[in-house]
């Protein structure tokens, strides 16, 4: 399940809903990863653009990988502005076994950072500034250069 929200995530509610959806599904391990906006470089917050068609196909491919290991993933992400100390990202894995869950959340979050078609902007002095230095070119970039 991939959920996109305009603005910050209601973390307690999402973590509760996901737990309640799955705690009787016989997964022994539930590991959410929650990303929260940190105060750094005097930003007021972050803002996000999301390209949904490719995000959905990227997420589907990870759902298949999870399924092959008997696991399940869920993800929520913000679109638009998310201010300091608010949260913009939750990814979670459910798995029968803890080792699979611990490895999967790690791999999933890293590939998310490297591949998910989401663009981040710093909000500073009323401006929306692309976070170029913290961004990663998607694998295979430069084809048209």
């Amino acid at each position, binding site marked *: 399940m991939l959920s996109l929200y305009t603005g910050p995530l209601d973390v307690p509610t999402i973590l509760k809903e996901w737990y309640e959806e799955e705690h009787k599904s016989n997964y022994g391990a539930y590991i959410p990863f929650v990303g929260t906006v940190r105060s750094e470089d005097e930003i007021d917050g972050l803002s996000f653009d999301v390209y949904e068609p490719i995000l959905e196909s990227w997420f589907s491919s990870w759902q298949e990988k999870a399924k092959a290991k008997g696991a399940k993933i869920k993800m929520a992400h913000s679109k638009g502005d998310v201010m300091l100390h608010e949260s913009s990202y939750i990814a979670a894995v459910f798995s029968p076994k803890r080792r699979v869950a611990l490895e999967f959340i790690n791999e999933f979050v890293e590939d998310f950072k490297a591949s998910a*078609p989401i*663009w981040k902007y710093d909000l500073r002095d009323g401006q929306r500034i692309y976070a170029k230095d913290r961004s990663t070119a998607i694998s295979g970039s430069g084809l*048209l250069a």
Partner: protein
Amino acid sequence: MVRVEFLGPIQKEALELDISNLNELAKILQGDAEVSDWLESCAVALNDTLVTSLEAPLKDGDKISLLPPVCGG
């Protein structure tokens, strides 16, 4: 016609081009000052699937997207 969209921080309106492969697109964009600096760091999707070769043939109604460096989370 093929539609070319520029995603995220690339401040450029979509183009409608009469091209038959990505090599032609590469030549056009390399000559476009608004976008040429982005090309090195952009991935390319054809109809929302990432492509890794310039050889894929294009047909009328195809959509090409340029994806600059990402940072979700």
